[in-house]
C-alpha cells in the first residue's frame, strides 16, 4: 500500500460518505407537490402529442432539442473516429466460417431489417424508437461485415455512402424541425403547428414524431456502422 493508494482510498471513502449523507438528506416533503411537470406529462402527454409512449413523446416532442443534441453527439463521435482512422489500411477482408453461418446470417438479415424498422416506426406506440431501431440496423452491417468481409475496392464508397446517409439523417431532423417554423410556429413544433396528429395508438399518428424517429434511426444506424467499420480498420 503506497501513500497514494491510501490517500485515494480515503478520499473515495469520504466521497461515498458525502454522497450518502446527501441522499439521506433528500427533502421528502416537497417530493410530491413539486413534480407537477411529470404529472403534466402523464396526464396531458397523450392528448398533446398523440404518442402513447410518453418517453418518446418527451424525447421527440417536448424535449426534441435535446434529442437533436444527442444525435449530434453520435454524429461527432462517428466523425472523430472516421477522421482519426488511417485511410490506407483496409482489413477484415475475408473470414472463414462454416457455410451454416453464411446461410443463417443471410436468412436473418431481412428479419433484422424488419425488426429495426418496426422499432423505429412503432417508437411512439411501444418501447423502442429511433435510437434502439438504429442500433439494430447497425448490427446488420456489423454482422454482414464480420461474415462476408469488406470488399477492398468498395470500402471507401460504402463509407462515403454511409456518411452521406448520416448527414442526411441529421439534416432531415433539422428540416422536419424547420417545418414547424415554416408553418408559422417555433422550431420543432408538432401539434401546435397544426400537423395531423391522428388518433392516439394508431401507427400514423403523433405528427412529426415518427418522422423524427425515422431520421434518428437512419442516422444512428449509419453512425454506428461507420464507427464499427473504422474500429475494425484500425484494429488490424
Amino acid at each position, binding site marked *: 500500500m503506497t501513500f497514494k493508494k491510501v490517500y485515494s482510498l480515503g*478520499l473515495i471513502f*469520504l466521497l461515498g460518505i458525502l454522497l450518502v449523507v446527501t441522499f439521506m438528506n433528500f427533502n421528502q416533503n416537497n417530493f410530491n407537490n413539486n413534480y407537477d411537470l411529470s404529472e403534466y406529462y402523464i396526464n396531458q402527454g397523450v392528448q398533446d402529442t398523440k404518442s402513447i409512449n410518453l418517453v418518446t413523446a418527451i424525447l421527440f416532442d417536448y424535449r426534441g432539442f435535446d434529442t437533436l443534441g444527442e444525435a449530434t453527439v453520435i454524429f461527432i463521435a462517428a466523425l472523430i473516429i472516421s477522421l482519426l482512422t488511417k485511410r490506407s489500411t483496409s482489413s477484415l477482408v475475408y473470414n472463414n466460417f462454416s457455410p451454416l453461418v453464411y446461410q443463417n446470417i443471410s436468412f436473418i438479415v431481412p428479419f433484422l431489417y424488419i425488426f429495426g424498422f418496426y422499432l423505429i416506426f412503432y417508437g411512439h406506440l411501444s418501447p423502442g424508437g429511433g435510437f434502439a431501431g438504429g442500433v439494430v440496423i447497425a448490427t446488420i452491417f456489423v454482422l454482414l461485415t464480420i461474415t462476408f468481409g469488406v470488399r477492398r475496392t468498395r470500402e471507401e464508397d460504402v463509407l462515403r455512402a454511409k456518411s452521406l446517409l448520416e448527414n442526411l439523417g441529421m439534416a432531415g431532423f433539422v428540416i422536419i424541425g424547420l417545418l414547424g417554423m415554416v408553418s408559422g410556429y417555433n422550431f420543432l413544433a408538432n401539434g401546435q403547428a397544426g400537423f395531423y396528429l391522428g388518433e392516439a395508438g394508431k401507427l400514423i399518428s403523433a405528427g412529426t414524431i415518427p418522422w423524427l424517429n425515422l431520421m434518428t434511426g437512419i442516422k444512428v444506424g449509419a453512425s454506428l456502422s461507420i464507427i464499427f467499420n473504422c474500429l475494425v480498420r484500425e484494429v488490424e
Partner: protein
Amino acid sequence: MINPGIIYLIASIILYMSKEEWRKYFALITAVSTGIILFALPQGQYLQLPFLDFEMILLEVTAVNRFIGFIFVFFSIAAVIYGINLFSRKDYCLTYFYIGSSLAIIFVGDFFSFYICWELMTISSYFLIFNNQKPVTRETSYYYFVMHLVGAISLLWGILLHYSAVGTMALTTVKVGLPFFILAVAIKLAFIGFHTWLPKTYAETPFYISVILSAYTTKVGVYSFYKLLGSRQYLAYAGIVTAVIGVLLALSQTKVRKLLSYHIISQIGYMIVGLSVGTAIGKKGGLLHLANNILYKGLLFMIIGAVIYSTKGEEDLINLGSLFKKLPYTTVYVIIAAVSIAGIPFFNGHISKLLLKKGTNDPILVWGMYIAAIGTSLSFLKILYFGFFKSAEQEIETKQRPTKGMLVGMGLLAAACLIIGLRPQLLLQILGGVKKEVNYFSLHYLWVGLQPTLLAAILLKLAYQWVKPQPHKSHPFDLYKLLGRGFNYFGSKLSQWHNGNLQRYILWILTALVLLWGQALI
C-alpha cells in the same frame, strides 16, 4: 489647446511612415513648434475627457510643468540635432514616442492618464534599449522592463488605493498608499537600492540613445516625486544618502557612461533633497537643478558619445587619454560640462547648488551635499584628466571626426549651461522667479562654489593611486537577480508536480471536490 506630449506621439507615427529624406526635417519642425505651443499655453486645466467612471484631465498647465516641459523640449531639439544622421527610422519613431510620453506625463492632471503615460514610457524605452545587434542589451532591457513594471504596478496599486479611498482621480499629493507611491517613484528615479537598472542600461545602448534616455526617465521620476510625494523631511535624508553613495559608486567606475550613470543617481539625490526639505527656495533649487542636470548631463553623454563615435566604441578611462589634441571642440564642451556639474561659479550648476544650500537648514543635509559635491568634482577631474589631458600609454586612434550635427547639438547645450549660469533669472522666471535675496555672484558664494573643486584637486593629487582608473570587478551583488532565481526555482518545482500522470491529475480533482463539498457541508 493640446498636450504637447500628444504632438510628439502623433509625430512618432508620422515619422514612422514618412520618407527617409523628410524625416529629420519633420522631426525638428515638430520639436520647435511644440516649444512654441508650450509657450503659448495658458495656465489651468483643459481637455477633460470622461472615461470609465471618472474624468481624465489631459492637460493641466502650471508654472512647474511648463518649466520642465520647456527643458524637455529644448533638450529634445538638441538631442535630435545631435543624432540627426545616426537615427534610423525605428529610432526616430521610438524616440519621439518616448519623449512624447514623458512630456505628456508632465502635463496630465489625473492619475489614470498619468499611469498610462508612465507605462507608455516604459514600453517605448524598453524597445529603445533593446538592441537587436548587441546581445547584452537583451538581458539589460529585460531587467529594465521588469524592474520598471514593478514600479509601475506599485504605482497602479497606490492609485487604486488612493482612488478607492478618496474617490477622485485628480493628480495631487497622495495620502493613502504612500509606500507604494514611494516605491514606484524610487524605482523610476533610481534611489540608491533601486538604482540597479540604470547603469546597466545606459552604458549598453548606442550612445545617441543613451543621450536621450539620460534626460527623461529619471527626471520624470523627479517630477512625480514633486507632484505625488510632496515635501517630507525623511525623504530628504534618503536623498542625501543617494547623493553620497551614488557619487562614491561613480568614483569607482572606469567606463565613462557607467560613471555618468552613477552620477545621474547622485544628482537625483540633490534634487530630492531640494524638493523634500519644504522651503520654497529649496523646491526651486531642486527644479532648477533638474533642468541643469538635464543640460549638463545630456551634454556629458553627448561628449562621451562623440568620443565613442570617433574612436569606434572606446569609452574606458583606462584606455583613453590625450583626446584634447584630437577632439578640440569636444574638449571645450567637456570642460564647460564638467565645470558646470562641479558647481563652479558662472556656470549653471553653481546656481542650483547654491539655491539648494540656501534652502536647507539641516546640518546633516548640508554636510552631505558638501561631501557629494567634492565627490562630483573629483570624478569630473578624473574624466578630464584621464580622458582628455593625460597622455595615454597606448595612443588612441580617432577614426572619424564627430559630425557637424553632434557639434551643434553639444554647442546648444553648452550655450544653455553658460547662459543659465550667467543669467539664472531667465529660466527662473518661468517658475515664478526667486526673490533677489540670493546674490549668486557675491564673493562669499563664489568661494563656497569653488571650495569643493579645490578640495577635489588636492584629493586627486594626494590619492592619485587610488583615484587612478584601474580594472576592477564589475559584478556587484544584485538582490533582484536572486529574487528572480527564487521565483524560477519555485516555478520549476511546481512544474515537476505536473508529471503527466493522469491518475494524479484526477486525484487532484477528487481532492478538490471532497474538500469543497466537505467544507460546504460543515
